[in-house]
């Protein structure tokens, strides 16, 4: 068996180009349809989340929370049929809000006799007559039920835990029939609410403790219900008829009431009565409303305004649970009571208290906001005419001193249309009190928010409003407050006024920021909000960059960190809101360029990968959007500038290369070679600075192809040369999204793309070797370190073999317009052909080596596949009339047959595969081989033909 087979390629007869009738079409199946799918905003969050987690069995935690919320909403027990507003829901949302807002780092104190731990302290209660006796009696009591303990120095979290512990304790006591103990825990808890030592936590404390009281109220209620109706769950607060309640249950209920009424201290008595308010339904429904009324007036006895208003909140809350819509009158009553007592808030004694706790006045006043908000919420839901109500309240505001708290809550509680009507009046009020108003920023900010919602068509005196506002705002002392107020008003200005006006405001802002003396960095958070808001609200984002004050405003921030944040915000919002695909305006381009530079300069060695990824994406968007229309030279200059500015980011460089390639392709028709060469040079210079070898090869290939397309042969060759040089450096694995991924599929793709491009590349005539680039490639393949048994290696060789055969043809199967390919260059010069055949012979030889190695490694499947592949190449592309080729084919066939036993199943498939692929060839082949075969065999099925080959071979060997 000869070891060396000389390869001779088959010269194909010239194919006739068949002229089929053709016509121009606009749509065809392969056309790439650009479909932009916009996420419909109406689709619910749950659906959206579901989409991502449907693959998992476990519901992911975020989704679970959402579902829980949804279930809560659907829960029939929770949703009482109340016409109008669902107070339970409103309460729950406020409840969560309060708990989040009012937190503290101060140490808290809890006094209870039902908690373990804590130092034993006997708390003396306020008492007057025969105090001594009482104190002694108390001491005696204390021996009975464990002394009252005071636990001090609790952190907020510990406090919450303790409160929850008490909640459990109540339930436990109730279950173990110790009802009086539960009652006492309730009293002790409500007593905690008289302690205002850590004021800023008070609202949260209120929420926590009223939860306990609710628990207690429910326990009593449920027991009475059970006593009355057994386990009938259909009975609710709303359908219990006192006449059907048995005498014993009534008696129990009354006992509770007496017990509650004899609580000595006022605050716990009131809280407990509120908690037990719903139990009145067992006695008489008519009792409820007078009781609420009475409680409303009794709260007057609480001197501390903070304690009193939260007491009113709880009263209204229980009333709303009990009466629903009917309770709204009580909200109003309580609000009126509150206004009567309004001045209590500003007493000097209170002032001393909050000052010793290091609270500022606005923080102190903020503690009242949620409570007042709740009272107003209920009041507004009543059917009264809102504008009348507002009018009334505003008049009240004018009458009372220190009206900012009330005014602030009014503005935030009423709906926008009503407030907008009164906006000038409110603004005027603020203006007149401006110098001593504490919560002015809140008032103005929420007024601004309302105005933002104003109908654009409605005629409101926008300009005068803005002017008055600016007069107030520009005199504000705190920069933070100023920015807070600026945010909504700027939006209002953006939507309602011309850009000139906005520009004026921006200029004013710059002046203010400079005047305030402190660097803008301290307020970068607020500053960013302002900018964000403006970007989101301005009708045309591009216009913003055309204002002369906008960029200087951004430059106010000095620290690089804050700057980067700002630039990122601006860019991302800009691109999300920018409607058209291209940016043409030069001013906008230069502004964006500046922002991108800031973004890029922030990147350093320690930047997180995601961070630079985001930056890269934003800059890419910018580069892709910028266009100078027909001024291609300028466009290229822009890209050059970009390259020098964004050298740190690989993704940007990649984008640039692509962009320049696009530019080069566009330039083709219009200009001379100059620009195209410049483009090709640009790419060739840019690519080496990238890090990833694989990307580099890809880009080299692409740039080479584009250069070839533009008939810049030298540049194309340079690119391809560089590519070949890189092949050995391609790693087996690359890191992608933190995972190691094999590269061989991509490499195989790139290489076959490259090889097919080589068919078009005219040879370098100056060099002394024919098929210069291809030769280089083959040489590289020879010394490459790839494992020979890898499919990547031998498949590449097979493809090279394909290319070599194709290159020997008289006319290549495709050409590029204006590019002179080798077929025309050499005109099938025998010297050229022989070079190619030599290469083919070598590769064939190498493949045989691989086959042998595969056999040695017992990789039969691979061996089988390779032998068949090679066989087909020999048969299709080789000149079988040459003896070595024929014998090679036969040997390969034998080899594949040998391995066939272990590959039985593949054998079953193979003939059909062959049939499909080689129909035209095999007829040709058989006609040639058929000189020694009977004619009848020609029409036999392919496998029979194959057997024939073997017999032919045998015959020929005999000859």
């Amino acid at each position, binding site marked *: 068996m000869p070891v060396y087979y000389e390869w001779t390629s088959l010269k194909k007869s010239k194919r006739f180009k068949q002229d089929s009738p053709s016509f121009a079409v606009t749509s065809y199946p392969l056309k790439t349809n650009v479909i932009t799918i916009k996420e419909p905003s109406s689709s619910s969050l749950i659906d959206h989340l579901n989409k991502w987690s449907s693959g998992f069995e476990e519901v992911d935690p975020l989704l679970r929370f959402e579902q829980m919320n949804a279930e809560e909403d659907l829960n029939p027990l929770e949703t009482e049929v109340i016409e109008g507003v669902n107070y339970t829901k409103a309460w729950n949302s406020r409840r969560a809000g309060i708990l989040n807002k009012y937190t503290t780092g101060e140490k808290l104190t809890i006094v209870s006799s039902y908690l373990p731990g804590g130092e034993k302290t006997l708390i003396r209660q306020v008492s007057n007559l025969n105090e001594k006796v009482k104190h002694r009696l108390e001491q005696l009591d204390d021996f009975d039920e464990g002394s009252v303990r005071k636990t001090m120095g609790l952190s907020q979290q510990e406090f919450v835990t303790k409160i929850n512990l008490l909640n459990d304790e109540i339930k436990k006591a109730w279950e173990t029939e110790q009802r009086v103990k539960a009652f006492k825990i309730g009293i002790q808890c409500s007593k905690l609410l008289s302690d205002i030592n850590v004021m800023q936590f008070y609202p949260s404390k209120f929420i926590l403790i009223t939860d306990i009281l609710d628990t207690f109220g429910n326990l009593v209620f449920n027991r009475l219900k059970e006593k009355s109706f057994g386990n009938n769950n259909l009975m609710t607060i709303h359908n219990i008829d006192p006449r059907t309640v048995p005498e014993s249950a009534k008696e129990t209920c009354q006992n509770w*009431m007496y017990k509650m009424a*004899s609580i000595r*201290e006022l605050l716990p008595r009131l809280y407990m009565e509120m908690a037990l308010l719903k139990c009145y339904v067992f006695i008489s429904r008519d009792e409820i409303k007078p009781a609420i009324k009475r409680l409303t007036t009794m709260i007057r006895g609480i001197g501390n305004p903070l304690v009193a208003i939260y007491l009113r909140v709880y009263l209204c809350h229980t009333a709303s649970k009990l009466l629903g819509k009917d309770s709204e009158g009580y909200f109003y009553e309580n609000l009126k009571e509150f206004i009567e007592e309004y001045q209590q808030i500003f007493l000097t004694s209170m002032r001393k208290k909050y000052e010793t706790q290091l609270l500022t006045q606005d923080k102190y006043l903020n503690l009242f906001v949620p409570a007042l908000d709740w009272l107003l919420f209920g009041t507004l839901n009543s059917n009264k005419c809102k504008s009348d109500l507002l009018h009334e309240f505003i008049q009240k505001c004018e009458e009372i001193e220190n009206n900012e708290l009330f005014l602030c809550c009014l503005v935030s509680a009423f709906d926008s249309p009503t407030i907008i009507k009164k906006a000038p009046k409110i603004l005027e009020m603020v203006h007149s009190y401006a110098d001593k108003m504490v919560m002015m920023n809140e008032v103005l900010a929420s007024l601004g928010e309302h105005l933002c919602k104003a109908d654009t068509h409605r005629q409101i005196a926008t300009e005068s409003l803005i002017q008055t506002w600016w007069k107030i705002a520009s005199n504000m002392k705190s920069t933070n407050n100023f920015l807070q107020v600026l945010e909504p008003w700027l939006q209002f200005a953006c939507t309602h006024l011309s850009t000139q006006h906005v520009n004026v405001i921006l200029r004013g802002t710059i002046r203010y920021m400079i005047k305030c003396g402190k660097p803008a960095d301290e307020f970068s958070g607020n500053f960013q909000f302002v900018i964000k808001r403006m970007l989101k609200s301005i009708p045309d984002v591009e216009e913003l960059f055309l204002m002369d004050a906008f960029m200087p405003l951004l430059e106010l921030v000095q620290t690089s960190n804050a700057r980067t944040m700002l630039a990122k915000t601006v860019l991302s919002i800009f691109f999300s809101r920018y409607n058209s695909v291209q940016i043409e305006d030069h001013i906008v381009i230069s502004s964006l360029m500046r922002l991108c530079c800031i973004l890029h300069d922030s990147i350093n060695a320690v930047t997180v990968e995601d961070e630079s990824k985001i930056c890269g994406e934003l800059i890419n968007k910018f580069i892709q959007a910028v266009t100078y229309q027909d001024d291609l030279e300028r466009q290229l200059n822009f890209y050059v500038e970009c390259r020098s500015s964004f050298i740190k980011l690989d993704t940007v460089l990649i984008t640039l290369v692509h962009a320049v390639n696009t530019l080069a392709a566009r330039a083709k028709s219009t200009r001379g070679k100059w620009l195209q060469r410049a483009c090709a040079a640009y790419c060739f210079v840019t690519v080496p600075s990238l890090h990833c070898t694989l990307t580099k090869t890809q880009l080299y290939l692409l740039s080479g192809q584009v250069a070839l397309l533009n008939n810049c042969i030298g540049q194309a060759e340079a690119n391809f040369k560089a590519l070949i040089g890189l092949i050995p450096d391609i790693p087996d694995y690359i890191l992608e999204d933190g995972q190691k991924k094999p590269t061989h599929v991509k490499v195989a793709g790139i290489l076959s793309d490259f090889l097919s491009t080589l068919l078009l590349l005219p040879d370098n005539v100056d060099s002394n070797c024919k098929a210069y680039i291809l030769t280089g490639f083959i040489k590289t393949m020879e010394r490459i370190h790839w494992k020979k048994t890898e499919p990547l290696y031998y498949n590449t060789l097979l493809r090279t073999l394909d290319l070599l055969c194709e290159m020997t043809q008289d006319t290549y199967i495709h050409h590029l317009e204006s590019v002179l390919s080798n077929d025309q260059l050499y005109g099938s010069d025998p010297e050229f052909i022989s070079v190619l055949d030599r290469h083919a012979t070598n590769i064939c030889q190498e493949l045989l080596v691989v086959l042998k190695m595969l056999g040695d490694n017992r990789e039969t499947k691979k061996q089988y596949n390779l032998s068949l592949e090679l066989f087909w190449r020999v048969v299709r592309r080789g000149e079988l009339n040459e003896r070595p080729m024929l014998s090679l084919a036969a040997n390969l066939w034998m080899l594949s047959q040998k391995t066939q036993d272990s590959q039985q199943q593949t054998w079953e498939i193979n003939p059909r595969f062959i049939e499909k692929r080689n129909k035209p060839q095999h007829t040709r082949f058989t006609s040639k081989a058929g000189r020694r075969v009977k004619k009848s065999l020609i029409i036999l099925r392919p496998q029979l033909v194959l057997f024939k080959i073997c017999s032919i071979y045998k015959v020929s060997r005999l000859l």
Partner: protein
Amino acid sequence: MEGSVNLQLSSKNVGIFEAFSNSIKPINLINTSIELVPPGKIPVGVTEIPFELPLRARQAVSPGYPGLLETYHGVFVNIMYTLKCNMKRSFLNKPVNASCQFFVQYRQQEAAPLKPVRCEITPASIRAAGGGTRPMPHFQVYAEINSTVCALDSPLTGKVTSLPPPVCLVLQHSVVIQWSPALQIRVDECSVPIRSIELQLVRVETCGCAEGYSKDATEIQNIQIGEGDVCRARDIPLYMVLPRLFTCPTTTTPHFKIEFELNIAVIFDDDYLVTENFPILLLRSK
């Protein structure tokens, strides 16, 4: 059926010795007995014997007999009614006894006419009343009680079931919550912060006989109606539920008296205390 008033002298007013020796004879209010079943046999099992007893005051009135009074348990005065059932059995068997206390309340009377009381508490008024030796802060407190005649109300319903043997009597009573009359207090002016405003219900029991009498005040309920420095010039409601067990209609008999008083106490931040006293009349009325 038996009803009696037990009186005890307080050791405060009279000497200890006298307190022990002078146990005042209980005043008998009612003592009647009827035969429920004539001698004979009661069949095995539960036998219910219905009975009826008129609750009527004695006809022959001795001097000082007060008539029927409401059940009341105080410190020095106790008014108690009991039902006793006695079953005499045959020779060698002990008689079986059972007893049960029951509560007596008056029928509701017609509502008494309101007797409103107003008063102003100022440093001057206190000085006029003889108090106030130390310097007082300037204040002016206005208090108003709609009526000093207040009603307590409780219908009595009874059900007697007897199970032989043992005989058992069950009595139930239910009370409709009766709110005390509306009261109001208003702090018009006050130069120092107020700590607390409290309302105190005091019961005064007076026991008297030939040898002397004792008068004793007991606080039976004290509730706070104002906490902290309350808002000036605002009416704060005074509101108190009368405790069931410690109150009864105001009673005056030759031998003893049960009376009630209200104290309004204003405690200032420096523990200075100002009180105003109102005697009130409690009635069982609508």
